[in-house]
C-alpha cells in the first residue's frame, strides 16, 4: 500500500453510492429525533406524574434502554419485529423503529430535567388561573422546558446522527455503508473510510458549532 489515491472520488461515485446512504442517515436521524422527542416527553410526563402505574413502567423502560448497548437493541428489534408484525420489515424500517424507541429513553431524561427546570411558581400560577393539568403542561411548562433544553436536545441529536452508523450491524444502507460499498467497488477501502471519517467530522463539527452559538444566545435571554 503506497500513498493514498483519492482520484477515484468523483461525482459519479457520489451519486451512485453516497447520496442514497446520506439520505437514509438523515431520514433516520430526523424520524428518530421527532419520534424520540414526542415519545420521550410522554415518558418524562409519566415519570413525573403521581401514579405509580405510570411511573414504574416508564422508569423501567428508560433505565433498561439506557443500560443496554445500542447495537444489542438494534439486534433485539431486528429479531423481534417479525414476531410482532408476522413478516420481516427489512433493515431500514427496523432501524427507524429501533432508533425512535431507543432515543426516546435518552430524550426523556433531557425533557424530565427540562420540566423540572421550570419553577414551581409557574405551575402554581397556571393552576391558580384555572388551567387544567393538560393546559398547564401544553401552554406553560412544556414550551419553557423545551426552550431551556433546546441545546441539549440538539446535542443529543448530533450523538444520534453519529449512532446511526451502527445500523451497520443489520446491514441497512446508510452513509457509512455507502462509503464502504464505494471503497469495495473501487478497491480503495482505505481512502473510502478516511473520506467517511472526514465527512462525518465536517457534519458533526459544524452542527455542534451551531449548537454552541445557540446555547450562548439562549443563555442570555433566560
Amino acid at each position, binding site marked *: 500500500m503506497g500513498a493514498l489515491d483519492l482520484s477515484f472520488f468523483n461525482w459519479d461515485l457520489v451519486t451512485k453510492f453516497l447520496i442514497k446512504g446520506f439520505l437514509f442517515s438523515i431520514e433516520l436521524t430526523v424520524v428518530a429525533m421527532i419520534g424520540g422527542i414526542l415519545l420521550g416527553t410522554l415518558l418524562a410526563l409519566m415519570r413525573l406524574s403521581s401514579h405509580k402505574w405510570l411511573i414504574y413502567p416508564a422508569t423501567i423502560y428508560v433505565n433498561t434502554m439506557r443500560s443496554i*448497548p445500542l447495537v444489542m437493541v438494534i439486534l433485539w428489534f431486528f429479531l423481534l419485529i417479525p414476531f410482532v408484525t408476522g413478516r420481516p420489515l427489512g433493515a431500514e424500517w427496523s432501524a427507524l423503529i429501533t432508533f425512535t424507541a431507543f432515543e426516546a429513553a435518552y430524550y426523556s431524561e433531557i425533557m424530565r430535567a427540562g420540566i423540572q427546570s421550570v419553577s414551581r411558581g409557574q405551575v402554581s400560577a397556571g393552576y391558580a388561573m384555572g388551567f387544567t393539568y393538560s393546559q398547564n403542561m401544553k401552554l406553560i411548562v412544556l414550551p419553557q422546558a423545551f426552550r431551556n433544553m433546546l441545546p441539549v436536545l440538539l446535542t443529543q441529536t448530533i450523538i444520534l446522527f453519529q449512532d446511526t452508523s*451502527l445500523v451497520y*450491524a443489520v446491514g441497512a444502507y446508510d452513509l457509512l455503508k455507502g462509503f464502504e460499498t464505494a471503497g469495495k467497488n473501487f478497491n480503495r477501502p482505505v481512502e473510502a473510510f478516511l473520506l467517511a471519517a472526514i465527512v462525518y467530522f465536517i457534519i458533526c463539527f459544524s452542527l455542534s458549532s451551531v449548537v454552541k452559538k445557540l446555547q450562548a444566545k439562549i443563555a442570555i435571554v433566560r
Partner: protein
Amino acid sequence: MNFRWEWEVFLRDTGGDQTYLAWLMSAWGWTLSVAACATVVAFVLGSVVGTIRTTPSPWLVRIGNAWVELFRNIPLLVQIFLWYHVIPAVIPVMKHLPGFVLVVLALGFFTSARVAEQVRAGIQSLSKGQTYAGLAMGLTLPQTYFHVLLPMAFRIVIPPLTSEAMNIIKNSSVAFAVSVAELTMFAMQAQEETSRGVEVYLAVTGLYIVTAMTINRIMAYVEKRVRVPGYVGGGN
C-alpha cells in the same frame, strides 16, 4: 405465536470442541478485557488532555481542544474502521498489531475526549483561589496541579467518570464490526448458528447489565473511600 424456551442451546456443541456456554463466557472475558484496557487508555489520555486545557499556555489549550473536537465528532464505528483499515495502511508498523489492540486504542482515544471534558470541567470548578494559594506557597505550576488541583478535581469527577466507565462497556459492543470475539459478536454468530436468538440475546444483554451494575457499585465504593470530609458531597 408459539414460543418455547430452549435454554439447552447453551449446552450444545459449537463444533469447535466447546459448548456455547463456554464460548459465551470467553466472549464476556473479551468484552471485559477490551473495556478494561480501553478504560486505562481513556483515563490516562483524558486526564492529560483535560489538564492541559486548563493551563495558561494557549498552544496547549489549542492542542487539547483540537483533540477533543477530533475524537468527539467522528462516530465510534468510523473511528474503529480508521484504526483498523486506514492507520495500518498509512503507518506500516501498525500492520502487525492484532485487532484487539486496535479496538482498545480506538475505544480508548474515543472515550479520552469525553474524559478530558469531565476532567477540564472538574479542574475549572475549583475556585481560582486554590491555584493562587498553591502559587503563593511557592509551588511551581506543575506542583500546584499535582498537589492541590488534581487531587480535588479527580474526586469531583468520579460520578461522571463512572458513567464513562459504564459507557465503555456498552461501546465495546461496536468491536463486533472488526471481528473481535466479544459479547455482541458472540450474540450475532450464535444467533445465526443456533436460531435461538431470544435465549442468546437475553444471556448477552443480562451480562452487559450485570457488568455495568458491578462497575457502578465499584465506583460508588471508590467514591466513598476517597472523599474528603466536609467537601463536595463529602458528607459529615
